[in-house]
């Protein structure tokens, strides 16, 4: 079995045995990237670019190669992200800022809303939650519990009610009562479920009708342990709701969440937040350099 740090530990091992930059080395590198879920094509592209770069820089020692790889990785990530904006956007003063949370079942939407509610509440903002998942058993109670814990307000309906109407009520209330932030929870749905995707489009329209500049963010929540299917998720949810950013959850688990590199290359969707646990404090802004650094950490610290 591989340990949690298997990826970087093994990279270190190659480098320890490293004599010259031979093909085996790059094959192993490809393997490590694939095992981080970046996908086969992306792994090939990256390793080819790294191969060129190592040659170009004439890196000979283990340390040099390590440096080149990390620099290049950060470059690749930076390049793909040049026109991207990984900050969270807010409404103009006097209007509520609305974030709509979307994603497949169990990805971490509701929990992330709880974490953000805590953060904004602690910053002194007034926060309203909209319990837009009226379908899943216990979903309303779950968000209500987060509202209680974070001392924020919530708009709910009866289970089974039309989600668009609860969300409309919440938007109206946020507007009328001058809330700073409205966080809208939605039921988990698989991207190939046409009816549920249409429902999501309708939810978005309802928000826009009440608050024409909203939502300021449509955040697609992705579970870091997801494989290549995450690319389909990103495509389909973007098509339906114009996703503005990704939230990568469960990065405290064994997975590296490499799929966001593939999503970034193909769709230019920036990661805005990462989830590192189930508590309110386990939410961080996404730092691309730090993320790449995390993949290769042992290498440069060595």
């Amino acid at each position: 079995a591989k340990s949690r740090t298997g990826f970087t530990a093994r990279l270190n091992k190659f480098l320890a045995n490293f004599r010259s930059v031979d093909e085996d080395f790059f094959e192993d590198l490809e393997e490590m990237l694939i095992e981080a879920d970046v996908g086969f094509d992306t792994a090939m592209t990256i390793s080819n670019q790294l191969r060129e770069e190592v040659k170009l820089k004439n890196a000979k020692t283990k340390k040099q190669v390590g440096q080149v790889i990390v620099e290049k990785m950060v470059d690749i990530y930076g390049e793909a992200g040049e026109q991207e904006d990984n900050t969270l956007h807010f409404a103009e003063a006097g209007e509520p800022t609305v974030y709509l949370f979307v994603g497949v079942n169990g990805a971490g939407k509701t929990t992330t809303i709880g974490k953000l509610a805590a953060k904004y509440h602690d910053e002194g903002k007034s926060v309203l939650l909209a319990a837009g998942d009226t379908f899943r058993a216990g979903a309303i109670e779950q968000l209500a519990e987060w509202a209680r814990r974070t001392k924020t307000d919530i708009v709910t309906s009866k289970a089974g009610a039309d989600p668009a109407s609860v969300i409309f009520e919440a938007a109206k209330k946020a507007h009328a009562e001058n809330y700073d932030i409205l966080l809208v929870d939605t039921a988990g749905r698989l991207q190939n479920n046409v009816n549920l995707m249409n429902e999501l489009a309708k939810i978005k329209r309802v928000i826009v009708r009440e608050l024409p500049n909203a939502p300021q963010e449509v955040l697609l929540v992705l579970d870091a342990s997801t494989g290549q299917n995450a690319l389909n998720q990103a495509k389909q949810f973007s098509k339906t709701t114009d996703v503005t950013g990704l939230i990568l959850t469960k990065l405290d688990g064994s997975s590296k969440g490499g799929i966001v590199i593939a999503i970034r290359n193909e769709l230019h969707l920036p990661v805005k937040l990462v989830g590192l646990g189930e508590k309110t404090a386990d939410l961080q802004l996404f730092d691309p350099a730090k993320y790449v650094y995390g993949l290769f950490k042992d290498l440069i610290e060595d």
Partner: protein
Amino acid sequence: MAFEGLTQRLQNAFNGLKRKGKVSESDVRDAMREIRLALLEADVNFDVVKEFVKTVRERAVGTEVLNSLTPAQQIVKIVHDELVKVMGDAAVPLNKSPHIPTVIMMVGLQGAGKTTTAGKLAKRLVDQEKARPLMIAADIYRPAAVDQLVTIGQQLDVPVFEMGTDHDPVEIVKQGLAQAAENKNDYVIIDTAGRLEIDEQLMQELSNIKALAQPNEILLVVDSMTGQVATQVAEGFNQQLDITGVVLTKLDGDTRGGAALSIRTVTGKPIKFVGQGEKLDALDVFYPDRMADRILGMGDMMTLIEKA
């Protein structure tokens, strides 16, 4: 790049081959490469792919294929057969205790589908065996986890034992089992909190529940969209709990579900059920050959064989 199933990949690889009619070493290598790519794109774990392709190659270079007039056809068949073989030949039923109650314990990562699947299993047992199950709410961590299971119980008219969130899960299970004994429930389904396989403290909690409840069935619930990490997760849970089976959820999505092969390979434990939707009737028994087709993107596999 659009996803290509193995069907298309092999068709491309074998285009030249069909003309030549004889298989060379390098033809076999090309075919194996296509198989490797198709499996990786389906999220089968890298190490599992390597091993699997080795087996296929060994069989493929055997005389049976090389001397065949239709080598492409033969290789496709070998891949498919090997996949089915690895994933188990037939559906494996739930373990049953010789005396009541049969105890089933749900375990897995956060958000995999444990609570929903607990409800689906209860419904299935009621519908098929007129069983009288009791569900135990042993997740005290996730907000409203107890409400979720209680709501599902109400929907199904199946009793749920709960003690809120202020008691130790082991204690909750103990008292739940006592109630099941009193009420002569024939099945007990224990819902546990989601946890990471590397979380020692919470994994120990599961070991303690297992020691107390002596479950006949420990079902690892896995999201079928899981990527490369599936092997690590399955090994982690299996090593610490010696699971008895696997449930693969969210197969109503468009994932290839390569995790099925990964998990089966590293644990050797049968995949018993698949989740096909959020509703409580969306649970099916696992069919290895359907899964094999799905992983390979080979809904049209028979067509290829006829054409080849």
